[in-house]
């Protein structure tokens, strides 16, 4: 029973957040839009001129654009898949009665606290390096030829690095949801002779659907703009095999201080991100209704 007064109060209470985000959106976005129609390079001051859609044309016709688009989606999809499946598995594991559960939980969440640049450096040089890395040492110990991770499987390797960082996030949310599962329901099912797989499939998983939705949505937002991991490890290569959209903007524009093209690339990325978001919301929005 919302009265008129409470509705007004509600609006007032909401307004700072909305206004601030509106300003945050309009000012940089407005400037970005404005710049995107200019030939504007910071290194060549005084040469700004209006170019219409020139910057967009240049960015969109880049030979690497489609590949970058594909890589962006593959990276998001791959990490999501890995963290959702891995997170569910881990959460169930930690939810079992085990010795030292607290410590295991600490171990599992630790990657979340490591800055992306640091984790990329560690993975690249101390783990994945085909000569000095630990993985190479292990594979050689097993008598096999070491895999050159970043050259042969660049996108996969980056997916692994990023997924490692996000796995704890997924695990924690799923674990929280798991712990709220009514154990009586499970016990009843067990009494009826249901095996662990069918319990998982028919009871646990439906219960987790909202948690999985949330993980998907939040991670997608962050994963669309993965940059540091690529920059540190493969530099988008070999070739453009691991270049995603943010990295393409970086190479095509930011590296040469071409504010015009960078802005055009930024606008393109925002539009694409929103398409993904709408798609996602459509797909999983039902899950968020209460």
């Amino acid at each position, binding site marked *: 029973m919302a009265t008129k007064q409470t509705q007004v109060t509600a609006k007032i209470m909401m307004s700072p957040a909305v206004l601030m985000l509106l300003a945050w959106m309009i000012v940089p976005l407005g400037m970005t839009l404005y710049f995107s129609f200019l030939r504007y390079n910071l290194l060549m001051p005084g040469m700004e001129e209006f170019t219409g859609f020139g910057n967009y044309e240049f960015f969109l016709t880049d030979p690497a654009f489609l590949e970058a688009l594909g890589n962006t989606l593959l990276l998001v999809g791959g990490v999501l898949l890995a963290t959702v499946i891995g997170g569910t598995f881990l959460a169930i594991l930690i939810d079992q009665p085990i010795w030292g559960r607290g410590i295991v939980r600490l171990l599992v969440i630790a990657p979340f606290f490591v800055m992306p640049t640091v984790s990329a450096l560690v993975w690249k040089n101390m783990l994945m390096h085909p*000569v000095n890395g630990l993985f190479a040492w292990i594979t050689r110990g097993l008598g096999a030829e070491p895999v050159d991770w970043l*050259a042969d499987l660049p996108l996969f390797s980056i997916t692994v690095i990023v997924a490692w960082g996000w796995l704890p996030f997924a695990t924690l949310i799923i674990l929280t949801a798991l712990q709220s599962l009514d154990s009586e329901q499970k016990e009843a099912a067990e009494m009826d002779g249901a095996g662990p797989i069918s319990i998982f499939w028919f009871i646990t998983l439906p219960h987790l659907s909202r948690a999985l939705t949330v993980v998907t949505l939040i991670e997608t937002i962050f994963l669309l703009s993965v940059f540091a991991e690529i920059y540190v490890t493969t*530099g988008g*290569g*070999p070739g453009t095999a691991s270049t995603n959209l943010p990295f393409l903007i970086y*190479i095509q524009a930011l*590296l*040469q201080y071409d504010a015009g093209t960078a802005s055009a690339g930024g606008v393109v990325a925002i539009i694409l991100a929103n398409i993904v978001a709408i798609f996602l919301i459509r797909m999983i929005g039902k899950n968020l209704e209460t």
Partner: protein
Amino acid sequence: MRFMPILLGTCAAALLAGQALAETTLTIATVNNGDMIRMQKLTDDFTAKHPDIKVEWVTMEENVLRQKVTTDIATKGGQYDIMTIGTYEVPIWAKQGWLVPLESLGADYDVDDLLPAIRGGLTVEDKLYAAPFYGESSMVMYRTDLFEKAGLDMPDAPSWDFVAEAARKITDKDNEVYGICLRGKAGWGENMAFLTATANSFGARWFDENWQPQFDQPEWKQTLQFYVDLMEDAGPPGASSNGFNENLALFQTGKCGMWIDATVAASFVTNPDESQVADKVGFALAPDNGLGKRGNWLWAWSLAVPAGSEKTEAAQEFISWATGKDYAKLVAAKEGWANVPPGTRTSLYENPMYQEAAPFAEMTLESIKAADPKHPTVDPVPYVGVQFVAIPEFQGLGTAVGQQFSAALAGQVSVDQALKNAQTLTEREMKRSGYIK
């Protein structure tokens, strides 16, 4: 309301007065390489001599630093009083009027003592816009023990054919010994520094006199094919993500027979604290193909003062201290002659104590002398720079081309395809920037 401006004026005046009385604080942006770290640690010597100047350091890895100082200077951000920049930036920035010409370095600075090749790269229209802190070229570092075992004798000025042959001969993949380690990680300052310099010695060039990209020419094909084949036969696995540091680690752990890279690496690979092969390293000039150009580059990390800084006097005092002759003596007294920043002054290379302490001194000097940024290629070019093209577009362009060549090295595209892609994307950028129609 009338008195508001007055009040503001008074405040501003008071502020200004306060600033004039207080000591000057210099904010210095620099790269986190060893020689700069040493400079940072020796700051006390400078402040003892200039009690009215305080120094604040911002030390960053190269790429982050470059991005920060470039953004700052292009937007006139004014966050730094001294910037550490390289030979790539100096000509571009000086032309924009973004740097203060260094004209008050003091009477005993002795500008003529600076190595001509280095000085030339930092001079625009006869004015010095940045003072070199250390200079480097590239050269061959090789394992004397492996060469001896293979019965090879490294000449002081090898040819590419000899280097290729030796590399293949030394390679022993079962024992993790690779004949040659070269840069492969994409980046204008990574693989493209090496490949552009190498291409010079093969007679290739980035652009002809009319800025027409030249990747469709046979010289480039020859360069890239040579590089890819050599690395395939004699290079380490994972070469396409190796930069300077990755190769350094490989060489220091005894996995490379040869390594062609920056001359500063010499002091690392001969340092017994870090290197397992410290006493088995020899040096030679970068290879050539008999065309009159060697495949070595030229770079100088230099200190410059951004235009618009209000502390230009103090800044130049600092620069004079850090790049002057006395600084070399200071470092020598504290850390030994081998640790003096190399490659900037003739006097250092004439110093017998330095010659004795640094076995790589002569080769470093010869390498620097062999590079000519004003005439880098066999055929004439419209640009300055040995391992780069000093135009603002080069960072992005070089990195994009570097990605293609790195893909060729990883075997993901053919050499022909990589060159074709490089040609297309360079033409695209040059057209857009109005160099060519």
